[in-house]
């Protein structure tokens, strides 16, 4: 898994590439949490264009980030999500707490 993060308009944008499963969950968690702390960002946008697979461990680690930011009123959004990933996010109820957008700028506008 490749993860890179940038901050735009005070929002943490996380680009993820690869498969989100138990194997990559820890790397995902620590990268995102570290960037959250150092940036002081409140909201997170996940750009999942490069994510080809997700299972419940991947969903779990996104939910974990939600729990973290929502305490301080932060929100999650995801962009460029592939159909097979959308399906798992939907199925697991995650779309109730994380909205999907077609582009980063749309997502930024919504936050």
């Amino acid at each position, binding site marked *: 898994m490749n993860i890179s993060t940038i901050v735009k308009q005070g929002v943490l944008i996380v680009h993820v590439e690869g*498969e989100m*499963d*138990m*194997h990559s969950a820890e790397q995902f968690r620590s990268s995102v949490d570290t960037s959250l702390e150092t940036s002081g960002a409140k909201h997170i946008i996940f750009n999942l264009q490069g994510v080809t*697979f997700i*299972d*419940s*461990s991947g*969903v*779990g680690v996104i*939910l*974990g980030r939600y729990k973290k930011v929502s305490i301080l009123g932060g929100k999650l959004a995801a962009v460029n999500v592939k159909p*097979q990933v959308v*399906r*798992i996010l939907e*199925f*697991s109820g995650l779309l109730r707490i994380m909205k999907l957008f077609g582009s980063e700028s749309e997502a930024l506008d919504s936050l």
Partner: protein
Amino acid sequence: MAINNHIKMNFTSNSENIGIARVTAAAFAAQVDLTLNDIEEIKVALSEAISNAIIHGYGDIVGEVECEMFLSDDILEFIVTDYGVGIADIELARQPSYSSDPERMGLGFVFMDSFMDELSVESALGKGTTVRMIKKITNDKAH
């Protein structure tokens, strides 16, 4: 029902191997003419079963995970076995949102159940757990 093909994988309970087993299962499933969606579902279900063997079955211990794949005339069957701690109450474990680990979602069995046509779980405390999953081959071209 004749078995037309069979692969057995044994591997150490290393999380690297979850992705490798998924790739193998996808290639095994591609022998028959399934939809991409069916193959995705198999990958998710297998990923859940193997992740459970590694996280719950073995935890911090390194153990051996077995993953068998069978192709018969109209089904694909996947059997994942660990020789870890076992499940005390299978019915409870299979309940949606139940997890013994507060950090996890309790969705593994839900995904296996929803994405495969049959799911059965056998387990014995201190001996280990076997999960069997069947995907029916309904696509006409597969016959």
